[in-house]
């Protein structure tokens, strides 16, 4: 299942933890996505000073990642106290999310594509879960109060379901493109 995955599919796997846990609503998704991209950039910067990639070098980077995610967690609560309700442990867990270490990887060199895709995905999943699960967007009521279109989407089964549907759509779109390319090759 891990073979021939596109960047978007890899992003969905590597960033699965925040994608499932920090997308209850759009604000939470936005805060986590911005923090993740900034932490990933800082990790990429620190990784430049580490030439080797032995286990203990990785432990050092992961230690930096966990420290940064903790600093972000504390800093956001301190600087923006009104955002505290939108912050959960998944911001702290960014330090153990594989996606933020992609800048330190030797074989994956499209760092910015990974971060861009992750950011878009987080916003998309966050918006979708908030609209379907609560009937709101940025806390603005869109449907009749108390009557969300699909209430269970705001809970954990909904997170799995939404991410699986998006993954399937990504797969379908990719297969379409591949089959089109194959077809054009055959015509040629």
């Amino acid at each position, binding site marked *: *299942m*891990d073979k021939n995955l596109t960047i978007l*599919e*890899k992003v*969905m*796997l*590597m960033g*699965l*933890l925040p994608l*499932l*846990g920090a997308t209850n609503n759009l604000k939470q998704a936005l805060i986590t996505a911005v923090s993740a991209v900034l932490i990933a950039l800082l990790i990429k910067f620190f990784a430049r000073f580490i030439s080797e990639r032995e*286990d203990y070098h*990785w*432990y050092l980077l*992961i*230690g930096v990642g*966990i*420290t940064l995610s*903790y600093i972000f967690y*504390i800093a956001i609560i301190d600087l923006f106290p009104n955002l505290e309700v939108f912050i959960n*442990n998944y911001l*702290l*867990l960014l*330090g*153990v*999310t*594989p996606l933020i*270490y*992609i800048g*330190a*990887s*030797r*074989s*994956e060199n499209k760092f910015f594509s990974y971060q861009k895709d992750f950011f878009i995905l987080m916003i998309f999943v966050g918006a979708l879960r908030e609209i379907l699960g609560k009937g709101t967007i940025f806390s603005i009521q869109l449907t009749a109060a108390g009557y969300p279109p699909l209430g*269970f989407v705001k*809970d*954990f*089964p*909904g*997170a*799995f*379901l939404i*991410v*699986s*549907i998006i*993954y*399937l759509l990504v*797969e*379908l779109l990719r*297969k379409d493109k591949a089959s089109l390319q194959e077809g054009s090759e055959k015509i040629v």
Partner: protein
Amino acid sequence: MRKLSELSRLFLNSLLSENMSLAFFLGILFMLIESGTIKQTAIKGLKYMSTVFVINVLGWFLHTILPGGLDPLNPAIFFLTTVTGVTVLKYWGELKGEWFGLPRFVPALGLFFGTQLLMQKGSYTYPEMMTANTAYILGGYLLFVLIAAIKEEIIVSDAAPVFKSYSTLLAAIAMLALGVIGIQII
């Protein structure tokens, strides 16, 4: 008697409706990518979950003996216990190789670090910690083997290749999660 019933409730909640992997998503990525055949996964699961159990107890003890003013050091303690867990598993011949250019242990970090964070968040006493930890481990192990079984079924099925992907596996987990919520309601 009352205490026992509270612990029983904590055990059932931690096993089902607050399952570490279904409700808190800890270790889901690791389970998706590490699960192989059912037999392999059953053996692998014993190694991983016993390690998680031990580092959870270790993390709980260390953060409990730490004075209250030093709480910001908790992530550092959990990181150290996580590294210990990874080292033990590597000694057992697990988590070797790479995964998309990252060491194979990186996807497992969420499980190790996250469960300790979950324990800390629960502010458990020793009996509560042991009960919750046992339920988390048991629930995690069952889910790991179940994911391996679903993965095996998906691979051998006659479905179109597009459905033989993580999307189907995630959808199956979503159904399991819905079932767990159903049990909670009952």
